[in-house]
């Protein structure tokens, strides 16, 4: 029954996507707009039904579906049973389709208000993407196959026919252990997908505009909000992924330049470049060709990322079993690139924009520099991630490209970006005289150097730490200086009190100041990373019950081993008390979780969060018969700055989207301010 319901939903959605292409193309060509609604409604309702059938099957332990049989177990607790819907390949494509349908609905709402050719063309492009993903579902990644031959655990053989006689297994193996270990895994994929899939919308508008041969800022303006939403979710998704790795993976890190992490970072970097250069096009009418290239690249990179993570090309916790989905995704990627850039080249006449930059010492100039850095950053990540695969595919030679390679190139690029971030917002459009720039930078430079000296004197003389604090406070200083400068001018002109003027300045140009909030978040991230990466301590000890160890000012006493069992897992761990200067701080319980009948446990660290940084305790080997346990202790100084900064950046993104901008007034205000 659920197999039929799910398959039906899937096919209705596929049909809806196909209709969306057809009717979108017709409307875009003839400028007669009708019937697009019903296609989008089919797409949305079909994908909701498909996802609903999948979730119900998981909640009701319906093992007649192969997906449930192979990825779910009776003992899997809430919310992991629901999250199992996107914990494996087929289900994750259903989620992808559902999110695409939701974005389609938002594009449609806008189109309904004023139906036009660009909107119809964009909907048609989204329809093409929808046809591809629902087509995948209907063929190589069918999530609603029926189990026709049960195995001891899970399913041995399956049929695509929803009414096939089911041989129902008694239980399944449950989802990937690592993904069951933390609630974060339930929400990290949907958030990340909201980011990935959202990038379809600016891509669709861009391709629509190219196909119609109507350039201009229209496609950019109309996709701006979607881009911000997608970018914010992508940022949040990456942040949650890092946090999950830190809380669960027990090596005390949050980023390892793993191909899968890289796959999410690449579109983020290019989308960030696009957010900035899009402003240049809206303001100065420049860089349209570049923006189109960035949008196409961002979308292509999301597909590349899906290919890398979902095809089994790379082994990691994110890659599912190999299937025909790899060639399909690679083919779609090639099609996207070839199709988009061919279209781009045939429309060279409408793409080109005439204004040229007046001076590199200008807002446009800093944006150009920022774009150069971000795209090279993305290029470094791209080549470092794919080169080993390509080399191995063609020559059979294995080379490793890991953390040291990326750090060598990414760290200098990141610091350069911070520097540009300090100058960007205080540099006026068109051209700037050195005097204004000097007046705006001198105080931040002094403050930044003072903070750097303070750090060197009180905390650490480590070069990276000092550099991150100095550059970070330079950025924060220029932002604060600009706000104060504008508030003062407004207070003088309008005879307002300074705090009132400041409030009006900040709310007046909401998107600009939301962007600055994101910048401040990036600063916190940079400082947090520099501290945690360079000032952490590490030790590994074997302790017997009653033993105590001194570590970084803490005294840690191993009290006893413990074991807790519940239906889905058995937790074996060590109980330790942490004291500082004689007073009790906390009880920590690093452990290993044994799911089902597994012989090997999933190590689960215990993290003691403190204002100065975390104490990170991992059980390397479970307590032996005598109770002795091998435990590592790490400190991650100031790591909360990383999480706080990430959330601040995300908040900035959402605020920018929400800001109702009183554009004319504010633009006039800021431009006269520089004269």
């Amino acid at each position, binding site marked *: 029954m659920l197999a039929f319901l799910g398959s039906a939903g899937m096919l209705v959605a596929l049909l809806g996507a196909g209709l969306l292409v057809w009717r979108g193309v017709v409307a875009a060509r003839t400028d007669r707009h009708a019937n697009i609604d019903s296609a989008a409604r089919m797409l949305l309702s079909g994908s909701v039904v498909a996802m609903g059938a999948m979730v119900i099957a998981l909640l009701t332990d319906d093992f007649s579906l192969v997906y449930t049989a192979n990825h779910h177990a009776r003992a899997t607790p809430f919310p992991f049973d629901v999250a199992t819907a996107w914990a494996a390949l087929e289900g994750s494509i259903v989620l992808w389709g559902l999110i695409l349908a939701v974005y389609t609905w938002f594009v449609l709402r806008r189109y309904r208000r004023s139906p036009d050719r660009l909107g119809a063309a964009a909907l048609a492009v989204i329809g093409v993407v929808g046809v591809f993903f629902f087509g995948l579902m209907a063929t190589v990644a069918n999530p609603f196959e029926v189990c026709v031959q049960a195995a001891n655990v899970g399913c041995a053989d399956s049929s695509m026919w929803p009414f096939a006689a089911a041989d129902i297994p008694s239980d399944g193996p449950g989802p990937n252990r690592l993904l069951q270990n933390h609630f974060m895994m339930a929400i990290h994929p949907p958030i990340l997908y909201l980011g990935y899939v959202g990038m379809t919308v600016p891509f669709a508008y861009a391709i629509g505009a190219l196909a119609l041969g109507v350039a201009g800022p229209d496609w950019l303006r109309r996709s701006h909000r979607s881009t911000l939403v997608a970018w914010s979710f992508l940022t949040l998704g990456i942040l949650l992924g890092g946090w999950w790795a830190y809380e669960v993976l027990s090596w005390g890190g949050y980023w390892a330049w793993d191909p899968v992490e890289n796959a999410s970072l690449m579109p983020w970097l290019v989308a960030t470049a696009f957010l900035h250069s899009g402003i240049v096009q809206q303001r100065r009418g420049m860089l349209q060709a570049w923006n189109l290239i960035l949008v196409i690249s961002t979308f292509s990179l999301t597909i590349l990322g899906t290919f890398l993570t979902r095809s089994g090309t790379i082994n990691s916790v994110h890659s599912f079993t190999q299937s025909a989905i*790899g060639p399909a995704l690679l083919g779609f990627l090639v099609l996207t690139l070839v199709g988009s850039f061919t279209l781009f080249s045939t429309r060279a006449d409408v793409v080109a924009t005439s*204004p040229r930059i007046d001076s590199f010492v200008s807002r446009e100039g800093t944006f150009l520099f920022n774009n150069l850095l971000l795209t090279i950053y993305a290029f470094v990540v791209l080549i470092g991630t794919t080169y080993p695969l390509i080399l191995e595919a063609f020559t059979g030679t294995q080379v490793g*490209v890991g953390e040291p390679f990326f750090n060598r190139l990414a760290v200098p690029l990141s610091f350069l970006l911070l520097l540009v971030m300090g100058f960007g917002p205080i540099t006026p459009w068109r051209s700037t005289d050195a005097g204004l720039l000097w007046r705006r930078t001198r105080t931040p430079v002094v403050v930044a150097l003072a903070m750097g000296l303070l750090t060197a004197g009180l905390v650490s003389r480590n070069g990276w730490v000092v550099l991150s604090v100095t550059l970070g406070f330079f950025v924060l200083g220029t932002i604060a200086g600009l706000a104060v400068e504008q508030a003062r001018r407004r207070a003088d002109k309008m005879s307002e009190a300074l705090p009132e003027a400041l409030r009006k300045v900040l709310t007046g140009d909401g998107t600009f100041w939301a962007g600055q909030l994101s910048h401040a978040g990036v600063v916190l991230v940079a400082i947090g990373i520099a501290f945690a990466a360079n000032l952490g301590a590490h030790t590994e000890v074997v302790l017997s019950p009653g033993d105590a160890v001194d570590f970084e000012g803490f005294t840690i006493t191993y009290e006893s081993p413990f074991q807790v069992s519940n239906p889905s897992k058995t937790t074996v761990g060590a109980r330790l008390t942490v004291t500082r200067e004689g007073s009790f701080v906390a009880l920590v319980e690093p452990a290993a979780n044994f799911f089902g009948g597994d012989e090997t446990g999933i190590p689960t660290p215990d993290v003691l969060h403190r204002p100065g940084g975390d104490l990170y305790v991992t059980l390397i080997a479970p307590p032996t018969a005598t109770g002795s346990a091998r435990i590592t202790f790490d400190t991650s100084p100031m790591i909360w700055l990383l999480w706080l900064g990430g959330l601040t950046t995300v908040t900035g993104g959402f605020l920018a989207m929400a800001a109702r901008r009183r554009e004319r007034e504010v633009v006039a205000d800021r431009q006269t301010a520089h004269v």
Partner: protein
Amino acid sequence: MSERLRNLITVALIAVMAVALVVLVATNPSDPDRIQSIGSRIKCPVCQGESIANSPSTMARDMLDLVAERVAEGRTDQEIINELLGSFSGAVLLDPPASGSTLVLWLTPVAALIFGVGVILWWRRHPPQVTTAETDAGTRRLAPLMILAVAFGAIVVVAGFFLQDRGGPASGVAAIDTENLDDVSNETMEAVIAANADHPQVDGMRLALAERYFQEGKFRTAFPHFLAVADSTYASDSQVVTALVRLAGMAWEGNGEVDAALGLLDQALAVDDGSAPALYLKGQVLWCGSNAFDESAGLFQQILADPELPDESRQTVQNDLDAVNARTACT
């Protein structure tokens, strides 16, 4: 205070602070963690893309211990890395050198930077494009050629990706047949194992491959495979015991490490306390390695006590037992 004076003071202040900061950072009595930094440059052979500094696996920890030892001995980074790469098959440098096949990695970002700067400079000087019917027709004519060229390149890439080296048994888990491996080449087995490192049934093939290397005397190549089986979640008890016994044999015969060998054998006996190969090798090691005749004799007797022991083996063990009882030095 005049604006000029104020500027002068600010510049002086900035200069003094900057110099002080640079001096403080430059004279930082830093003690970089060489063990971690070397460890982060080596890929752990049995893991998925993790460095040995980050991996909790037994093998990574052993390798890191070796790094610590060598650092304490005062070896240079390069010496230590060379030793690790030479001793552990599957260990790969994560920090690709700027030479040979990885030179591309370092050159292309620099080339991209130069290209990017060039494009920006060109773009600025280039006058706004005047669109004429002629250029328009030119692009139109060019377009089909471009499509063809790009499509051709794409097909080559896709084909290369999926056909070369990924064909054959390596591409599918189902192709693992651990029963009949006689006709399968070492390279194919390596490829299948690498592609299915996580697969529950890969241990049988791993063991067969390692056994081949072992018989050929390629201990260093065999080592990581035996270790992986010994560490594997899915391996059966007998597979684990076999792997541990082989590891012990290599530690003893290859490196003369008696304690290490005994430790591994005790692990094997903890899994299966009646394993004849483990008991026999332990007896041999005790006899030959530390002249512990009594303990050795006890182990040989324990083997002989098993009524199901094949006659051939019984004879060998009996001979050894007699030699031990006679207090002869082992041969």
